[in-house]
C-alpha cells in the first residue's frame, strides 16, 4: 500500500531568504500552514506547485515531483495540484464563465462540474461579468471554484478567503470541509486555522517550527513567540448542549463541565465544536468563586506555569478532563496565589470574550 502522504525535503532560495522544510504531510483533510508574514508560507506552497527553483525531494503518494539527485523536476502543469493564489489571478481577458471553463477544459478526469461549483459558491449572478469589475471577495470565490474544477489531487490554498465577509466565509469553509481532496491551507487567522484544520504546520523564518494535530500545535509553548502574544490560546472541543434563544446563549459541554457562549445558530445541538479560548481571557482561582458575573468556571489541574522574565506576565496551562486551557495572568498574581504545578485550580472565562463567530 503506497503511503498516503506528501513527502517534502526541500530547500528553496529566494535572494536572502531561504525555505528549508522536511516534513511528511498526511493526505487527508485540511492541513493549515500558519505563521508570521514573510515566514515562508507562500514559498512552501509555490515550491510544492513547482513554481520555485527548489532543490531536494517532493513526492506525493510515492509519485515523485522533484528529486534533484535524479534530476527529476515535474513542471507545474503536470503536477496534479490546484492553486488559489493570494491575489486570485483570474484571467482578465475572460469573463467569469470563461475562467471556469478554462479550468474545466483542462481538468483531470472525473469530478467537479461547472454547475456544481457555480452552485456551491453562488456564482450564478457573476457568470457573464468581466473579472475586472469583481470585488475582492467575488474574485476569491471564482478563484476557488476555478481551482476545484481542475479535479486536482491536492489543493494549495493561499489565504483564499481573506477578502470574504464572516458569513460567506463560514459557508465556504463548511463546504470545503466536505470535499474529499486534501488541502494545504495558508492562513494568518488563527481562528480560521483552529476551526478548519486537523493538522497545523507552523512556519517562521523559512523553517518548520511545529507540525502536528492543530490542538496540540496551538497549545505548544514554544510557538507562542511566533503565533503572537495576544493570539495565544487553546482549542477546546465541546459538544453543543442547547441554544437559549431568549438570552441568545449557547451552552456547550466540555468533558462534563458546562460553558456558555454567545449563541451561534450555525451549530446544531449534539454537534462537536472547536472553541478557541484566548489565554488573556482566562483567569485563575484556587477556590470556586461565587456571586460574580463570569459564567464559565471550569475546574482542572495546573500542569505548567511559565513566569516570563522581564515581563509582568506568566503563562499557565490548565488540564480540564483531557483538554487544556491556557491562562495569561500576571506574575504577581501567580505568586500571590502561590500557584504550583499539580495543584487544583478553577479557570474562569467570560462568556462575552468568545469571538462573535469563533467557528
Amino acid at each position, binding site marked *: 500500500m503506497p503511503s498516503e502522504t506528501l513527502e517534502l525535503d526541500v530547500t528553496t532560495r529566494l535572494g536572502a531568504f531561504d525555505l528549508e522544510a522536511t516534513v511528511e504531510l498526511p493526505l487527508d483533510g485540511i492541513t493549515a500552514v500558519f505563521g508570521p508574514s514573510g515566514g515562508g508560507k507562500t514559498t512552501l506552497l509555490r515550491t510544492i506547485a513547482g513554481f520555485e527553483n527548489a532543490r531536494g525531494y517532493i513526492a506525493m503518494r510515492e509519485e515523485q515531483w522533484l528529486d534533484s539527485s535524479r534530476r527529476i523536476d515535474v513542471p*507545474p502543469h503536470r503536477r496534479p495540484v490546484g492553486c488559489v*493564489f493570494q491575489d486570485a489571478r*483570474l484571467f482578465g481577458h475572460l469573463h467569469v464563465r470563461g475562467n471556469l471553463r478554462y*479550468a474545466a477544459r483542462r481538468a483531470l478526469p472525473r469530478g467537479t462540474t461547472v454547475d456544481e461549483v457555480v452552485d456551491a459558491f453562488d456564482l450564478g449572478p457573476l457568470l457573464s461579468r468581466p473579472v475586472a469589475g469583481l470585488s475582492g471577495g467575488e474574485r476569491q470565490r471564482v478563484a476557488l471554484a476555478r481551482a476545484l474544477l481542475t479535479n486536482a489531487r491536492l489543493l494549495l490554498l493561499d489565504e483564499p478567503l481573506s477578502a470574504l465577509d464572516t458569513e460567506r466565509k463560514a459557508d465556504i469553509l463548511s463546504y470545503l470541509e466536505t470535499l474529499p481532496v486534501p488541502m494545504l491551507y495558508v492562513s494568518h487567522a488563527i481562528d480560521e486555522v483552529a476551526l478548519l484544520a486537523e493538522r497545523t504546520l507552523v512556519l517562521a523564518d523559512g523553517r518548520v517550527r511545529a507540525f502536528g494535530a492543530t490542538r496540540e500545535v496551538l497549545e505548544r509553548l514554544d510557538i507562542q513567540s511566533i503565533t503572537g502574544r495576544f493570539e495565544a490560546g487553546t482549542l477546546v472541543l465541546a459538544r453543543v448542549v442547547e441554544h437559549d434563544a431568549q438570552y441568545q446563549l449557547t451552552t456547550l459541554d466540555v468533558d462534563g463541565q458546562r460553558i456558555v457562549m454567545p449563541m451561534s445558530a450555525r451549530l446544531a445541538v449534539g454537534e462537536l465544536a472547536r472553541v478557541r479560548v484566548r489565554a488573556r481571557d482566562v483567569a485563575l482561582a484556587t477556590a470556586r468563586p461565587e456571586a460574580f458575573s463570569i459564567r464559565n468556571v471550569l475546574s482542572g489541574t495546573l500542569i505548567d506555569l511559565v513566569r516570563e522574565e522581564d515581563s509582568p506576565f506568566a503563562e499557565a496551562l490548565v488540564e480540564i478532563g483531557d483538554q487544556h486551557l491556557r491562562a495569561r495572568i500576571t506574575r504577581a498574581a501567580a505568586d500571590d496565589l502561590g500557584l504550583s504545578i499539580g495543584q487544583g485550580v478553577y479557570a474562569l472565562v467570560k462568556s462575552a470574550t468568545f469571538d462573535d463567530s469563533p467557528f
Partner: protein
Amino acid sequence: MAELGPIWLTAKLAGVTTLLLLALGTPLAWWLAHTRNRIKPAVEALTALPLVLPPTVLGFYLLILLHPESAIGSLWVRATGDSLTFSFSGLVVASVVYSLPFMVQPLQTAFAAVGRAPLEAAASLRASPLDAFASVAVPLSARGFLTASVLTFAHTVGEFGVVLMVGGNIPDETRVVSIAIYEHVETLRYADAHVLSAGLLAFSFVVLLVVYSINRRFPIHAV
C-alpha cells in the same frame, strides 16, 4: 496622376515584412521579457541598433552581406536563382532587420506587463507553456500585438536609405514610394512628388493617431 506601382509595392513590402516580423519577433520578445540570462542587455542593444544607426550604414553592411558573391547571397542565388541585392526579396530581408525594434519593443513591453502571474495561474490549471502562451499571454497582449504590427508596417513604409542602398530603383521590384518621391524631385516633377508625399504624410499621421488612440483607451499592460 501618380503611379500605382510604387504604392502597391510599398504595401506589399510592408505587409510581408510585418508578417515575417510577427513570426520572428514574437519569440525574441518573449525571450527578452522572461529571460534572466546575462546576455539579455547585449541582445536588447543589438535589437535596438536599427533605431540609431544611419540607414546608409545598415544598408552598406546588408549590401556586403547579401550580394551574390557573399555566403548568404550565393546560397540564395543557388536556391532561388535570384539575387538578394536589387530585388524584392533583398528588400524584405533588409526591412526585417530595419524594422525589428518596432516589432520587438512593444511586444516585449506587453509580455513583461502581463508578467508571470497569469502564466502561473494557467499552469496551475494544467495548461502547458505553449497552451498558456496562446490562451493567456497572447490575448492579454493583444494591444501590444496591434501596436507592434501597425508601427512595423508604418516604419517599413517610411524606409528610404536602406532601400536605396540594397534595392536601388527598379520599377515593380524595388521602387517603393519613398524612392519614387526622391526620383520625382531629382527630375523636377514636383507635382508627382507632392501627391506621393502628401499621401505618405496623411498615412503616417493616421497610423500614429490610431496607435495613440489604442494606447490611451487600452493601455498595453493587462489587468
